[in-house]
């Protein structure tokens, strides 16, 4: 009798009940934490793998690029624009007022050497490759690049001026190994 009463008390009420509640809660919490931890390897396996991360830096010889010319090379699977800017283009990029820019940044902050503009050629809207590298392609209202996908205009410093893209074309990490060799990455 005594044990039965005790069991009933434990199942339904007061002191014993809260102990059972606690056990259920603690077990569920440990179980949920365990499941979450076990899920992490599954989720993380979908992140870039070591071989993808190891994609090496790219080196380019920039000596053949004449003033006013631009080339596109591939770095980490993405296009990188290298433009040899004219004096006039540099002046226009440097003299832009910051309050005209949706994503304000000076031209000086975006280049190592003013004549060499190096950009990741991926539109910051939804990832198309902007036009303007080849002769005859539209270069947008600010003479830089124009993204045909949804109409973003970039200026001669690769800064966004008009259209749905929120940010400037990004500048990849790069160093000049000497006067003719550029290393990206």
């Amino acid at each position: 009798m005594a044990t039965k009463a005790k069991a009933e008390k434990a199942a339904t009420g007061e002191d014993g009940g809260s102990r059972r509640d606690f056990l259920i809660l603690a077990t569920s919490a440990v179980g949920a934490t365990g499941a979450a931890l076990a899920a992490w390897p599954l989720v993380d396996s979908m992140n870039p793998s070591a071989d993808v991360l190891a994609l090496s830096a790219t080196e380019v010889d920039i000596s053949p690029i004449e003033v006013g010319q631009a080339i596109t090379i591939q770095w980490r699977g993405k296009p990188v624009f290298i433009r040899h800017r004219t004096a006039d283009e540099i002046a226009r990029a440097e003299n832009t007022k910051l309050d005209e820019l949706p994503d304000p940044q000076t031209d000086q902050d975006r280049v190592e050497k003013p004549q060499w503009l190096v950009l990741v050629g991926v539109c910051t809207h939804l990832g198309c490759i902007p036009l303007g590298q080849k002769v005859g392609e539209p270069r947008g209202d600010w003479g830089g690049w124009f993204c045909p996908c949804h109409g973003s205009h970039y200026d001669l410093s690769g800064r966004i001026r008009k259209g749905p893209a929120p940010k400037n074309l990004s500048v990849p990490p790069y160093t000049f190994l000497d006067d003719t060799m550029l290393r990206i990455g």
Partner: protein
Amino acid sequence: MLSPEKGIGKWIEDRLPVFSIARHSLIDYPTPRNLNYWWNFGSLAGITLVIMIVTGIVLAMQYTPHVDMAFNSVERIMRDVNYGWLLRYLHMNGGTMFFIVVYIHIFRGLYYGSYKAPREILWWLGIVILLLMMATAFMGYVLPWGQMSFWGTTVITNMFSAVPLVGEDIVTWLWGGFTVGNATLNRFFSLHYLLPFVIVGVVLMHIWALHTVKSNNPLGIDMKGPQDSIPFHPYYTVKDNFGLGVFFFVYLTIVFFFPNFFGEPDNYIPANPMATPPHIVPEWYFLPFYAILRAVPDKLGGVIAMFASILILFVLPWLDRARVRSARFRPIYKQFFWLFLVDCFVLGWVGANPPEGMFVTIGQVATIYYFAHFLILLPLLGMFEKTRPLPESIAASVTSAAVTSSKG
């Protein structure tokens, strides 16, 4: 014939009641006696799903999910594999038919108020199926690895970069790299294989909910007794089969005579990560949503509007406060229904065109109207519309000459 009353049939039935379940849901299932042809599209959607799975599994035996081989493996299916061209065209255009059928099925629900109590969960499960179908079709389109495959994926996956703070990390995670690449193609193939079976699961729940609350009907009133219903078999099995014949006529006409009508020629150019095609368009069934994305001149805003345009369907049962279900008895709603349908076509047309000139304005107006339909018109109609009197019962309406004139 096996019978559940005797012999092996009874032996099975006693252990797993397959016979009674089949009889209950496919033969005796009481169905309103007044269903019209718009009620054919549910069974058509189910059959299309089966066609997609069967053709897909056979295609997967020949397809290679690798960036260097995917395009050529699809070309090999087209040229060298026995009947490969047929399998691929059935699968490709089956996707198109699937969306046509499901969109009609959804608009049927909108017209006859099938989302209203007690069918809210049935309606939700339908929207979940639509979302899963969209994900499946989107990932399937990546597999042939043509220019549109590659750039469509790039643009769509990049939408997630609009998420504040972690956006870029999410996109890298989705890609498994720094661009759409081999890792992306592989995982999309894996998921493209998986999701249709998830859809099968949700479809079963959809039918379970249907059989719990029973079918709506063109009058939008409940069945009140046996005089209002007829058994599913043979009445609707016959009607569904007739519809299936018409469906196959249309589907196979496309497959045999216009197999690339709904496709983009650019997708027969192998993917080139270094050159974006001048005009990127998604598959036709995504065009209205693509137009909504581009109507908002802000990256995050556009993505939110696009997702909201589908998610808003989840709360539709509470936005539309009218008690009367069927548009037949809602003279004003009926007009706005057609206007809404036209609006969706306008959005589709805008989505197919470059975002320039008048298309920008038209797209924005049509987007605003899309949301206004749900958020302003429907709640107001619920309050002010004067509905027409409902018939006493389904039986009374189909038998009395007086109401037969009230078509709609």
